[in-house]
């Protein structure tokens, strides 16, 4: 095995599978960004692609590509670590490979139908075969069923491997979290005329995924990642993982209530949701403390600088994007005016990026180091400018976009909601205010900056370590 050379054959079956998931994930990341740019441009020039690929189609592909690629990133990360953690080979390689291809072909069909067919007549047929029309989980019902079957196969592989090998704290949390994650998806697989009931269960999927089970999954991946990049003792990461689970589910499960303020649900949700969602930043603070403390304790000595940088970015991004930006508008007294404005998109952008994009990119860097024969990825790395520039551009772009959207959100809450009383005329008055329009231009500019960062990132993922022959230093503590 030569350091620097791609050596796919030396990877275990689970790791080879992980590489496939990562490749699709990065392709979808690029698609997410491009459709985001199209949608952002339509804010500035509504005639752009009008009647051809309308805003709702671009926006749907933008957010669906994101959900799917983040899931691919998680699945890839799990397949990467499962054999190492369990100490035995994957139980069902063939099944795992078939699952990957079935899932990927299904995703491709769904996206093509979104773009080409777009919509259908107002009946159940459309919901089953074209588009379910519910934000984030638009995938038609046939695809829902396929996704559940694939998740079942993936679950069998992960849990089965731990059963055959050895269990650990990380394994236990991961398996239980996967059950919850897959089970919650069922809450989004039905139709009802009753809109409040529809949105009640819809939030079970969205919120209990991104503000509970996904965060715990990230906790598992982070725990394993810290052991690998910093050689943090297992006892420490496992204890922290339990603390995070307790705090995350302790606040996040009933924090669900912050989505039940205005959808027809009873008034007690104002209190329950306001209180518990205000606690949601606490586990995220714990995660920052954990990551930074561990990094500092090991004097930032790491055999994989890009991965460590992205792990630190994750800790802060999660806290700021999910924690602070969520907290800012989570109390009902404020949310009455910010609900459904650009505040939400400001929060959504920074939270998904800070909490999830960062950790998956970190993990891919861990994987690539192994793929290239444990190549040197520390100081004085040849071509090291690429990972630094991509990290900087992606972050500057994201933060700039978030601030621009926040300014637009402030303006919208004030002009449309507080002063205008939310009529359609007030909506459009808000949309045409100079602050709003300028913010949309800034958002566009920072979005382009981010895209440049992503292109450099993708090049770096293909090239990093290629010009090195040194092997990574070992992490004896």
């Amino acid at each position, binding site marked *: 095995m030569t350091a620097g050379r791609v050596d796919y054959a030396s990877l275990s079956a689970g790791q080879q599978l992980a590489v496939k998931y990562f490749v699709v994930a990065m392709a979808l990341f690029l698609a997410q960004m491009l459709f985001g740019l199209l949608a952002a441009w339509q804010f500035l020039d509504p005639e752009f692609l009008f009647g051809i690929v309308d805003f709702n189609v671009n926006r749907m592909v933008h957010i669906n590509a994101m959900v799917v690629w983040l899931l691919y990133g998680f699945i890839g990360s799990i397949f990467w670590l499962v054999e190492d953690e369990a100490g035995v080979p994957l139980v069902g390689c063939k099944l795992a490979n078939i699952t990957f291809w079935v899932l990927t072909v299904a995703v491709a069909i769904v996206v093509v139908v979104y773009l080409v067919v777009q919509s259908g007549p107002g009946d159940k047929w459309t919901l089953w075969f074209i588009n379910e029309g519910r934000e984030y989980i638009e995938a038609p019902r046939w695809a829902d069923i396929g996704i559940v079957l694939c998740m079942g196969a993936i679950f069998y592989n992960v849990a089965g491997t731990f059963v055959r090998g050895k269990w650990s704290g990380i394994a236990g949390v991961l398996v239980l979290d996967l059950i919850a994650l897959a089970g919650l998806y069922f809450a989004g697989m039905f139709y009802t005329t*009753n809109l409040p*009931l529809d949105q009640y269960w819809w939030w079970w999927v969205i919120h209990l995924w991104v503000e509970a089970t996904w965060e715990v999954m990230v906790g598992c991946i982070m725990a394993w990642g810290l052991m690998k990049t910093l050689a943090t003792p297992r006892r420490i990461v496992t204890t922290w993982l339990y603390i995070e689970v307790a705090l995350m589910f302790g606040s996040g499960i009933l924090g*669900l209530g912050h989505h039940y303020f*205005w959808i027809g649900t009873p008034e007690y949700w104002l209190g329950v949701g306001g209180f518990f969602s205000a606690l949601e930043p606490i586990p995220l603070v714990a995660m920052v403390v954990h990551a930074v403390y561990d990094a500092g304790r090991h004097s930032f000595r790491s055999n994989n600088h890009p991965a460590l940088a992205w792990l630190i970015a994750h800790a802060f991004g999660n806290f700021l994007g999910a924690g602070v930006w969520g907290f800012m508008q989570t109390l009902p007294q404020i949310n009455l005016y910010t609900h459904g404005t650009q505040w939400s998109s400001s929060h959504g952008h920074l939270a998904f990026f800070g909490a999830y994009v960062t950790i998956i990119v970190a993990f891919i860097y861990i994987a690539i180091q192994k793929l290239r024969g444990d190549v040197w990825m520390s100081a004085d790395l040849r071509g090291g400018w690429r990972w630094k520039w991509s990290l900087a551009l992606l972050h500057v772009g994201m933060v700039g976009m978030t601030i621009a959207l926040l300014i637009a959100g402030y303006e919208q809450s004030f002009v449309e909601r507080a002063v205008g009383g*939310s009529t359609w005329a007030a909506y459009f008055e808000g949309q*045409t205010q100079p602050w709003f329009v300028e913010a949309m231009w800034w958002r566009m500019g920072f979005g382009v900056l981010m895209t440049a960062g992503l292109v450099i990132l993708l090049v770096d993922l293909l090239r990093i370590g290629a010009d090195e022959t040194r092997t990574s230093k070992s992490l004896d503590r």
Partner: protein
Amino acid sequence: MAEPSQDEDPSGREWWASEDFWRKCAIFVTAGMAFVLVVLTYHTHTVILAGAESGRVPAYSVINNRIGYEFNDDRNMMVPVIGPLAPLFGEALSEDEARALVDHGKLTVQARNCMNCHTLLGNGAYYAPDLTKAWLDPGWGNEEARELLMTLFLKDPVANARTYGTNRRMPNPELTDDEVRGVIAYLKWMSAIDTNGFPSGFTVLPQGTLSTGSES
């Protein structure tokens, strides 16, 4: 348990820093919160059924009545008010007929992916106005003109664009006549849902009295 090495954190021996304590915490906290959520979900379910006694989500036949949205001093928030008979398209429907019409509207709104431009009860995308009180919006002029204007707009939103000085037009969703009626019924029913005062400070278009005469 073996003596921890020098490198390990000595606090690891304290009960509050032990793996075992936090594992139990994680299990009990998660189970407890999940239990509370299930109980609240059960209760919420009974309260938000269409036509339930709580009145939060009206029966579908509410589309036979005039609907208002007024400030309620007791609750200190704006709440929907169900007024006297004012049937949609001049034709009073039974509960089943009304449900079927609203259902067709909701299916149409989902099938045409309206939620990725608009928000419904504040949820969705932010490229077009919120639809929660679309039925009551003063943009329709007055009660008499509303049904006709809504129908014309939904039939051809490009020709009958309502852009308020912007050039952000709604693309033509090519709705059938039945789908248009369904969507309007759905929006009328939606405007009667009690949303805890969201949106706040909304001005309702000019319409007739909300007094049903039967109330004291």
